[in-house]
């Protein structure tokens, strides 16, 4: 416990202030002021995060209790912030990358109206606030608040250009897909509450012994469902590519660097539970791997620059889950970090390109941009190398760590993983080559317009490029440098319990070297092949055929979902509305009324005005009464 950590509340609070100022004052703020406030609060948060990080690095953690969110006889949920190694690392990533993207946005969103501009920044601030809440929360419920909060911001930002209905649909899709996952998360929380009566991390983790194996497996599976939603894994990944409808900085921040890693954060946070549930771990690893491969294959054939990056994000997230699944928590978190750097970089670079192209996103209309935009080009190339896992760029170290752990668990995982890495290198350099190499294929008007982006855009690119290059050096494997894996040492306290249960597989150095060599070599081949092939890319009008068409159409997964979920749901709702509700339930209710009316009409015919009939009926009544009284 360290009193100097008392100020952690400022970290999320500042973005909240920014959100409120920008949101409420959006009609009165100039663009400069809005941008300044928006970025400034994040910068302040970042600085505090850095400060906090260094305190935490000294081994100080902090659990701050502010007020009782819910305090009843049956449940206590404090509004708690927990600052420890894991969250402080994420704080850095979120505020750091977030700040850069805010800066970037001040320029990128310049074309907007002042009040929309302010709105944009307020949303962005709100997002950072939610994300901080997510990682700082001291229990699952606060985490869930942030969890849904980021979903909301994602929704708002994807649908930022709300006049376009496609964008709105994408936003809606993202939110609903997320909600499906959220339901899993919630059920897991309920399970915890039901069994342990608490959702506080430290109490849950301290009391895992009270849970049966079935409970743990169930809880972790449900948590993982939540993670698949937020982190775009099979089967809930399809929203992420669509989410590219939002402004590019948003894609960079939310749909690449931070929000989508919430699932990884959550599992890393709950690592002890997952370690105790090997079945879930296997599921996580398989899903992660499958996602990595599936998304990579799709990315091979995409032509939209942001779509490629989106699928690559899905694919990389798959790697992270693979890491989590095989118990390489540090590796996964490491990959989150490096991925944040290079993927943010790539997105921002893509944004720069799009900006320069006047909104054009189709790579077939690009080409040869390296002449016009040198900074973007170089930083983008560095990002590509990093993601392709080329040593000594950051991606190499993190991905390698995951693959090594996967090999230790099951060599088949490794083989598939390497295949994915190969494809990654291929599609990234396809992207790179199509965009920057070769000749320009767009209209002349676009060509005139081409220019390097302003400093507010290039500055974050440069910073991120540097990080993408050196970011991996905090996690150099043991075999290269004794004590080189500083990240592992730093995160050690978080995963202590897990490490006790599942001892790390030590493997011979030779094996490790071989594995590395193979993966690097494979990636390199793919890289070179793609570079060569697509530098000379010419627009063709031939349709893709065979497997290529399937890939270009994303394995028809959207269509599949449409057919097995959306359509049946629609017919079901139509059936319920038109048949069940109208005819059966309401029909029954009205039918009672009609029956009464009908009965009334019929029964009044008895009253036919003839005395004879009346008397006859009376006599019959008399007879009946006599029979009842005398003989029954």
């Amino acid at each position, binding site marked *: 416990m360290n009193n100097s950590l008392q100020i952690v509340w400022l970290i999320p609070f500042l973005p909240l202030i920014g959100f409120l100022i920008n949101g409420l004052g959006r009609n009165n703020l100039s663009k400069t002021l809005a941008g300044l406030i928006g970025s400034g609060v994040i910068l302040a948060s970042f600085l505090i995060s850095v400060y906090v990080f260094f305190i935490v690095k000294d081994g100080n953690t902090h659990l701050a209790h502010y007020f009782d969110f819910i305090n009843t006889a049956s449940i206590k949920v404090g509004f708690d912030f927990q600052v420890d190694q894991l969250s402080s690392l994420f704080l850095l990533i979120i505020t750091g990358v977030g700040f850069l993207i805010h800066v970037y946005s001040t320029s990128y969103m310049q074309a907007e109206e002042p009040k929309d501009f302010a709105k944009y920044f307020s949303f962005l601030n709100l997002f950072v606030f939610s994300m901080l809440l997510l990682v700082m929360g001291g229990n699952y419920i606060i985490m869930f608040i942030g969890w849904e909060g980021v979903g909301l911001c994602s929704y708002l930002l994807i649908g930022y250009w709300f006049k376009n209905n496609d964008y709105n649909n994408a936003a809606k899709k993202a939110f609903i897909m997320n909600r499906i996952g959220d339901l899993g998360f919630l059920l897991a929380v309920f399970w915890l509450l039901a069994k342990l009566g608490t959702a506080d991390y430290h109490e849950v983790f301290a009391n895992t012994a009270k849970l049966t194996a079935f409970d743990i497996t169930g809880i972790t599976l449900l948590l993982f469902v939540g993670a698949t939603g937020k982190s775009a894994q099979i089967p809930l990944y399809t929203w992420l590519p669509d989410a590219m409808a939002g402004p590019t900085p948003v894609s960079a921040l939310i749909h690449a660097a931070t929000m989508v890693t919430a699932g990884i954060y959550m599992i890393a946070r709950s690592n002890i539970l997952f370690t105790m549930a090997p079945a879930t771990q296997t599921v996580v690893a398989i899903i992660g791997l499958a996602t990595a491969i599936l998304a990579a294959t799709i990315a091979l054939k995409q032509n939209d620059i942001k779509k490629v990056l989106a699928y690559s994000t899905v694919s990389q997230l798959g790697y992270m889950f693979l890491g989590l699944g095989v118990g390489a928590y540090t590796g996964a978190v490491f990959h989150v970090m490096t991925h944040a750097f290079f993927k943010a970089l790539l997105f921002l670079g893509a944004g720069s390109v799009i900006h320069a192209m006047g909104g054009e996103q189709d790579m077939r209309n690009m080409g040869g941009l390296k002449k016009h935009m040198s900074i973007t080009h170089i930083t983008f190339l560095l990002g590509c190398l990093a993601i392709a896992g080329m040593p000594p760029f950051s991606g190499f170290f993190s991905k390698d760590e995951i693959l090594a752990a996967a090999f230790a668990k099951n060599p088949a995982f490794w083989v598939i993983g390497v295949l994915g890495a190969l494809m990654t290198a291929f599609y990234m350099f396809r992207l790179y080559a199509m965009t920057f190499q070769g000749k320009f294929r767009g209209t002349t008007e676009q060509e005139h317009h081409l220019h390097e982006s302003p400093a507010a855009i290039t500055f974050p690119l440069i910073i991120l490029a540097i990080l993408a290059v050196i970011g991996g050096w905090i996690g150099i494997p043991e075999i290269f440098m004794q004590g080189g894996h500083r990240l592992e040492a730093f995160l050690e306290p978080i995963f202590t319990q897990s490490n006790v249960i599942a001892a790390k597989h030590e493997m011979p150095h030779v094996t490790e070297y071989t594995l590395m060599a193979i993966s690097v070599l494979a990636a390199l081949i793919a890289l070179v092949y793609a570079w060569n092939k697509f530098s000379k890319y010419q627009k063709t009008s031939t349709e893709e055929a065979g497997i290529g068409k399937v890939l270009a159409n994303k394995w028809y997964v959207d269509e599949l979902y449409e057919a097995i979920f959306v359509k049946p749901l629609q017919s079901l709702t139509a059936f319920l509305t038109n048949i069940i509700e109208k005819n059966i339930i309401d029909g029954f209710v009205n039918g009672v009324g009609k029956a009464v009316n009908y*009965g009334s009409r019929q029964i009044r015919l008895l009253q036919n005005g003839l005395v004879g009939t009346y008397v006859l009926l*009376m006599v019959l009544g008399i007879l009946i*009464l*006599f029979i009842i009284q005398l003989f029954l």
Partner: protein
Amino acid sequence: MFGGVFFKNKATPKYWAIAGLVAIIIANCLELQSGEPFFAINVSNMLSFNSFNLTFIAVALSCTLLYFLLSGRDIEKVGANTPEYFALIFFVLCGVCLAATFNTLLILFLGIEIMSIPLYILTGSDKRNLKSNEAALKYFLMGAFSTGIMLMGIAFLYGGNSEGSFFINNINLGEGKMPVMIAIGMVFLMISMSFKVSAAPFHFWTPDVYDGAPTVFTSFMATIVKVGGFIAFIRLFENSFGKVHGQWQMLIAVITAATLFIGNLTAVFQQSVKRMLAYSSIAQAGFMLLAIFALNDTAKEGLILYSAAYSLATIGLFAILIKMHDYTIDGFNGLGKQQPVLAVTATIFLLSLTGIPLTAGFQSKFFMLMAALRDGHQHWLVLFAVLCAAVSAYYYFKIIQAMFFKEGSQDVKDHGSIALGENITPAFKLLLIITAVLIIVLGLFPWLITEWLHY
């Protein structure tokens, strides 16, 4: 003892009638207070006066007073024989009083006949109107038929009674199943009493007669006379057959259910408000039959309350109905705008008939249900009763809807008014308001009536 008072009214119009009535009410109430007879007349124990009877008579007389006040002018309009009408009404009232106080079957018989015969005449008093004639004849024929049945009943009862007596609390029933002869007499009597209170399946005269009779007399028939019949019914069955209640409860349950069912269901489809009220009176009779079904103290309290609540509301409604041009439900369209006082009071009457809390109608239904449940048998009947009450809301509220939520038809607009404006004096409105207030006061404080029973 009341006969003398009636005579002096014979030749006098309304005001004498009202004055005389007030005098009787005061006498009655004094007697009720003191518990001592006011005039000592030797009736050879053929009448019995107790708090229950006297309370009922007070209620009946008060309702009649209200009826005179509200509808006196309309009685004058029926025909040329106004004083005779008043006299006949007084005779009926005398019959009602006898029916409420009888102690022997003879007085019951006479009382019921005195109630009926003037009514046959009143029904047919609108001589030019064929409907009125027809109603009178139907009423008469069927009434005479039921008299025959009643006499058979009395004869069998007398025959079965080993005491050989006509006193109603003097029937030697002994333990166990009642003798067949008495059972036959009981069924005959039940049938004829059911006829008088228009319980199904002996209700057939009711709609036609109520519909055909001049509206102002329908009002009287449907209220005071009918509840008089009920008092006779419950007194007869409580005193004579109370001990073997269980043996005929099923029978009355069947009658009750049939009455509720037919009354409510048939009322739903009626277009004429007058006819609808006739059916509704059958339906209300079904509820009142629950008192006879239950036959306990709650039932008796409730029956008195029901008499008051039902009579007040129905008299008020008929008083309004008389003023209308058009007796169909559509004829009420837009009344809320034209005559808000009439519409609002009519609404209170209808709510009371439906049994909405805050009105006397609720309290009375509540007592009935409580009585029936307290009895502890045949819960299905109670359930059935409330379902029927729900149906009753359907037709009562149709009138409310017409008054407030529908526009008057073009015809009415041309006509100028829905109601006969010249008849609606401020005094009339005031009386309606008083009636409505009475209903609400009784709804809030039913003990204003029921407490009399505990003296």
